[in-house]
C-alpha cells in the first residue's frame, strides 16, 4: 500500500503551463492549425540538446500538451528540429531530410551550435550553421536551451 500512499502524496508534478514565447508566427506554422509533427535531426550535436528535447517531451514539461509531437520519419513531419553544428558528414543527410519533408514545413534550429555553430565555429569538421544549408524559421538559443524554453518556442509555433 505504501506505493499508493506515495502516489497520493506526490500528486501531480507536471510543470505549471509555460508561457508561450512572443514574436511573429510564420505563415507555414499558421497553416498547421495547432498541430505540429516534429522530426528531430541530429546534425552533429554533442547530445546536450537531445537530452533537453527529450525532457521537453517527457512527462514533466510535456510539450505534447501544446500540440507538438515527435514522429519517426520526415515523411510524417511538419517541422524539423535540428540540433548541433552541421558537420560535413551530416550536410547531405540534412538536405535530404529537408527534401523529404512535405510542404508546408518549418525548420527549428535548437541550441547555440545549430543557430551559429557556437563554440565549434570554424572547426575543421563543421560545414556551417543550419541556416547555411536549409532555410530556418525559428531559432532556440542556449547551450543547451532549457526544456521550458523549447516548449515556449513550440507553443509560439503551434499557437496553443
Amino acid at each position, binding site marked *: 500500500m505504501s506505493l499508493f500512499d506515495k502516489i497520493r502524496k506526490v500528486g501531480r508534478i507536471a510543470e505549471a503551463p509555460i508561457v508561450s514565447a512572443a514574436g511573429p508566427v510564420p505563415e507555414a506554422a499558421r497553416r498547421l492549425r495547432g498541430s505540429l509533427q516534429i522530426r528531430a535531426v541530429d546534425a552533429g550535436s554533442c547530445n546536450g540538446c537531445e537530452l533537453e528535447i527529450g525532457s521537453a517531451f517527457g512527462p514533466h514539461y510535456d510539450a505534447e500538451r501544446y500540440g507538438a509531437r515527435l514522429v519517426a*520519419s520526415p515523411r510524417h513531419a511538419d517541422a524539423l528540429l535540428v540540433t548541433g553544428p552541421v558537420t560535413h558528414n551530416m550536410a547531405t543527410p540534412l538536405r535530404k531530410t529537408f527534401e*523529404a519533408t512535405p510542404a508546408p514545413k518549418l525548420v527549428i534550429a535548437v541550441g547555440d551550435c545549430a543557430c551559429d555553430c557556437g563554440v565549434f565555429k570554424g572547426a575543421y569538421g563543421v560545414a556551417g550553421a543550419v541556416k547555411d544549408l536549409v532555410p530556418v524559421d525559428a531559432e532556440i538559443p542556449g547551450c543547451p536551451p532549457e526544456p521550458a524554453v523549447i516548449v515556449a518556442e513550440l507553443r509560439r509555433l503551434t499557437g496553443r
Partner: protein
Amino acid sequence: VTLAGTALGLASAAALVGCVAGFVLPRRSRVVVATLATALVGTGATAAGLGVLLTGDHVTARWPEILPLAGVTIDLDPLGAWFVLAAGAVIVPVAVYAYGYCDHALTGRAVQGLLPVFAATLVLVPAAGSMSTFLVLWELMAMSSLVLVAAEHGDRPAVRQATVWYGVMTQLGFVAILIAFGLAAAGTGHETFAAIRHDAPTLSAARASTIFVLALAGFGSKAGLVPLHVWLPRAHPEAPSHVSALMSGAMVSLGAYGVVRVAIDLLGGGPRWWGVLVLALGVASALFGILHALVASDLKVLLAYSTTENMGLVFVGIGAAVLLAAVHEPALAGVALAAALLWVLNHAVFKALLFLAAGSIARSTGTRDLDRLGGLMKRLPVTATMFTVGALAIAGLPPLNGFVSEWALFQTLVRAGGRPPDVLGLTMPMAVGAVALTAGLAAATFVKAIGTGMLAMPRSPEAERAVESPVPMLAGMSVLASACLVLGLVPGLLASGLGRAVRAAGGRGEPLGSGVAELRLAGARGVISPVLLAVALLVGLVLVLGVARALGGSRARRRAENWGCGRVLQTARMEYTAISFAEPLQRVFSDVLHPQHDIDVTHAAESRWYVEAVQYRASIADGIDERAYQPAVGALRWWGERARALQNGSVHRYLAYGFGALLVVLVVAR
C-alpha cells in the same frame, strides 16, 4: 484419315527430316532446319490435339511390320490428345526460342538432330496405343533428352554428374514401368491398351495393385515426385534452357499421363488406398518442392523444385479423382481429374515460359545465381517482363492461367471434404490445408525471384552489363506469355475438350460446363468468370488511379527522392538478397530443411582478443538426397570397389571364372 491424323503424321515426318538434317547439314543451316522441323512438330501436335479434343474422334493406326513381334499401334484418344496439346503448345514457342538461343556450344550435330526427335516423342508417347509402342517411345524420349541434357558437358563438369543422375533415375523408372506393363500384359494376355482396358476387371486385386504401385513409382520418378525427384534439381539447371523448358513443361507431365492412363483408364480405378497413396505423394511433393524452391538461390534450381511442387499438386488432383471414384462420387472424381489435367496444361505453359526467361537471363548475364542478378527489369525489359508474367501465373494470381486451375482444385477438394464416408472428411481438409500452404509459399518464392532477380540494383558487373536477348527468343517467350493470359481469361474455350479427355479416362457425365466468359464445375457446383474478374480488376485499378488523380490534381506536386533515412550512397551490398529474403521462412521450416550454418573466426596472430576475419557459410541440402540417395550411392561405390578385386587382369583367373560358371550351370540344369 482425319485432319488430326494427318497433323500427327506430318509432325512425325517433320521430326524425321529435322533429325536427318540436324546430323547431315552444315552448322549454319543445321540450326535453321532443325528448329523449323521442331516448330512443325509442335504445330502438328497442337493441330492433332485440338482436332481430337474438339471432335472426340480417335486417331488410330497400326503398322505391324515396323517393330518385330509387336508392331506399332497408335491410338490417340481425347485423354492423350490433352497431353499432345500441352506438348504442342510448348514445343512451338520453344522451337522459335531455340533458333535464337542455340549458338556456338549448342549447334552440335547431336543437339540439333535430337531436338526434333525429343519433341516428337513428347507428342507420340501419349498417342501410343499399345504397351510395346509406348515403351519404345518412352525410352526414345528418355535417351534423346539425356543427350540433350548433356549438351554442355564440355563447359561445366556439373553437367556430366547431372546427366548420370538423370540417366540412372529415368532407367530405374523405366524398369518399374516395364515390369508393371509386363504384369498387365501377362495378366490379360494382350498388349494393346484397348484390349487391356477391356480385360482389366479380370485381373486379381493383388496383381492390379502391384501394377499400380510399380507404375506409380516409374511414372512418379519421371514426374519428379518426392522421393524420386532428385534428378530434377540436377538435370533441369544444367540442361540448355530450351531443353529444360521442354522437359519441365512437357516431359514431366507425361509422368502424370502415365499414372492417369494406367490407374484410372486401364485398370479402371482401384481401392481407396490407391487414391490416398497418390494424394499423400502429391501433398508431400508439393510441400517439399516448394520449401526447397523457397530457399534456392539458383534460379533454375528454384524452377526445378517448383516443378516438383506443381507435379505434386497435379497428383493431388489425380489422387482425389481415384479416391472419389473409389467411394462412388463419380461427378466429383471427374471434376478432380479435370482440375489436374487443367493444371498440367497451365503448368506446361508457364513453366516453359519461366525456364525460357531464365535461359535468356543466364545467357546474357552468365549466371543463374539470384544473388548475383538484380536490376534486370531495366536492362532486359522484355525478358524480365516475361519472367514476371510467368511468375504471377505460377503464383496463381488472376487474370493469369494458374489462378483458374488452382481455383478448380480448391473447389473440388473443399466440396469433397464435406461428403461421406469418413475417409474424405479426413483426407480432403488436410489436402486443402497443404495446397493452401503450398500456394502461399509459391507466392513468397516468386516474390523472391522477381524482387531480387528482376527489380533492385544489379548485384554483379555481369548483371550490370546485361543486354537483351535476340528477337526469336523474345518472340518464343511472348507466345507463351500470351497463352498464359488467354488460358487465364477464357478457360471455358477448352471445357468441352477437357470434358472429353476426362470421359476418355473413364469419367462419366460432363464435369465442366462453360459459357462465353465463364467456367463451370458442373460436378462441384462452382462457377468462375475470369473475364469478369479481369474487368473488375481493371475497373478497380482505373478507379483508384482516377480518384487519386482527381483528389490530388489541385495540389502542387513536387518530385523527391525516395526516403532512405538520409543515406548518402547506396550500393548493391545493402540490398535484400534472395537468401536473406527466405531466411525467416527457412527458420520456420528448419525442421524440414535442416539448414547448415558454419561460422569460422580467424584470430589475429598477436592476440586471441582481436579478430582477423569472420567467415559465414550457410547451405541447405536436399534431405532426401542426403539421407537416402547418398548412402545408397556410397554403398554401391563400396561394392564396386570390392568387385574390382575379382578383375585383376590375370587370364588364368578369368578362365577359372568361366569354368566355375560352367560347372554351376551344369549342376543347376542337371
